[in-house]
């Protein structure tokens, strides 16, 4: 599968899911919105939809809707700490340009 999770990202996702106490896995996706056209989705999953693609990466169930797949091909989800801030990072080769903070992007 062309979408991957770094070791750190996988550990953190598994951790968050345990602490949350429910959830099937992690949803990755894109939707149109934001100043540069598209925005990422990063959500817990309680229900799987018909057009979802499900696969496992490093022990974590990853769920992506079929429409988002092409935009996420080759993407790696990483977990990073920057100063006091920490969170997930999308390393996406499909992105041509993005807004200053990277919350919104274009392909």
């Amino acid at each position, binding site marked *: 599968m062309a979408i991957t999770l770094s070791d750190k990202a996988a550990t953190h996702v598994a951790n968050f899911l345990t602490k949350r106490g429910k959830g099937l896995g992690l949803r990755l996706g894109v939707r149109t*919105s934001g100043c540069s056209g598209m925005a990422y989705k990063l959500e817990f999953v309680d229900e799987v939809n018909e057009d979802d693609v499900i696969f496992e990466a490093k022990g974590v169930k990853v769920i992506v809707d079929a429409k988002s797949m092409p935009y996420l091909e080759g993407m790696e989800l990483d977990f990073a700490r920057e100063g006091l*801030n920490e969170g997930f990072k999308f390393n996406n080769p499909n992105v041509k340009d993005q807004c200053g*903070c990277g919350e919104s992007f274009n392909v």
Partner: protein
Amino acid sequence: MALFQIAEPGESAAPHEHKLAIGIDLGTTNSLVATVRSGIAVCLADEQGRPLLPSVVRYHADSTTEVGYDAQRQQAVDPKNTIVSVKRFMGRGLRDIAHVESMPYDFIEAPGMVKLKTHAGIKSPVEVSAEVLKSLKARAEHALGGELVGAVITVPAYFDDAQRQATKDAARLAGLNVLRLLNEPTAAAIAYGLDNGAEGVYAVYDLGGGTFDISILKLTKGVFEVMSTGGDSALGGDDFDHRIYCWVIEQAKLQPLSPEDSRRLMMRCREAKEFLSKNPEAPIMLRVDSGEMIEVKLDVATFTNITQTLISKTMQPVKKALRDAGLRADDIKGVVMVGGSTRMPQVQKAVGDFFRQEPLTNLDPDKVVALGAATQANLLAGNKTGKDDWLLLDVIPLSLGLETMGGLTEKVIPRNSTIPTARAQEFTTYKDGQTAMAIHVVQGEREMIADCRSLARFELRGIPAMVAGAARIRVTFQVDADGLLSVSAREQTTGVESSITVKPSYGLSDDEIAGMLKDSMEHAKDDAMARALREAQVEGERMIEATEAALAEDAHLLNETEIARIKATIAKLHATIAGDNRRLINIAMDDLGFETQAFAHRRMDQSIKKVLSGRKVDDIRMGEEE
């Protein structure tokens, strides 16, 4: 590059619209800030990875400040300008503060609240607390990478109106939007209850650095209902330090100490206290300025003995809170321990003995309040959470009353009333042609006015001249969800209805806050003006968004004229937001608020009907269950 958090299903925020909200535990000894990240409450640490921020502020002569560990290290070097435990002075006059004699500060008595003379000028406890809050705010903004929509600040449940108002003023001064003042034990109950899926009646025993609270809560299906609360807002770990301090002075037969020595010895005493939580004996050693060496050993038995009265002092409010809730110790399903001082074994033993059960200590007593506050802040900011929604029903800790003839108190709102609450009282004139009337509001349980805390004295003026007893003045006391009181008065018989809102005398006016902000900023005026304008614009945009959402959902509650008027007012507000006149924006917002008032009430009515519908009326007519 942005860092993402995992959202709840379907709740991914649009880019740049994450609602960053924080919870702050503003403690006597230490403070913390926490937030909810990927659905989990976490405390935010500083660059060195330390979650606690000592609530210590040092003022330099050039008006710069040091806050936290840096200031704490300097407290014995520069005791007069290094303020510790400032929470004890919030909303307090000089005569309310215990052990003033062993404190190194230059106190200045000021109306309502004491002030401190430092070499950076005279500082109010509100300003000192604001420095602590600013430091936590900066930490949070740095850690979350954006502007905060708001904060929940915790206060001891037993804080009175003056202490609450002072805390809220400090937060405003620090530039925080206060979503709610939350009682510390209630915050702990949220963190504990949601984590453990608790149901039943719980007691929260919260012994912090300088305050003690006991709250009895009923947890049912996502509702946290405070049944009663009690405490002592001047009793905490500091007092245990002070007992050791006095014991050492007695043992070593010391002469009065210099402020520097005094502070150093107090630090040794605190260390000894902490050491005794895990060890049978603690050495206390200090070389004082005179060259004399203090060297004593304190064992657990002696420590327990000299602090016995402090512990029994906490048990009185516990008994009273149980009585107020109409319960006995056996009715309590679990006792949650909160606050660093509950680490002392003799405290745990006393609580365990009283409730005849092992107290619950599975959450870090230092962090649990901040974590609960962050969880509540996340909910109040409008972020969805994984857990089902919950509802908090808190109470007012002390009765509110009025002075009547002969210096007696007449209770208007009794303690443990669920907030928000209001009560109206009618007054009349006792002299012909009387046009003014004095009203004195107090807080406390005692019968004599002198034994209660005076909150506000104000005079109702402009009463139309009538014969004695003819005027009817209705005074309304409103306590909001923060536990803060406001008073308004209205003369009802004449066509002229005069209405005033009274803010208790110790609170800071908007002008004073603006003045303090100005003092603390360079180019203050421009900054403050720009900030105020931006705030008004954001508020205006939010209001338009909310109104449009309401129209999209519930336009059926309005007729066409009403819809047209609301739309026209929205357009007007839009136009003012595009400009840079803050006053015009505020006026346009008031207009929209006025135009949508009836709509808002109809929507509220509809939502109540909806939630009550579908119930069987047969269920209702059952027997009396008292």
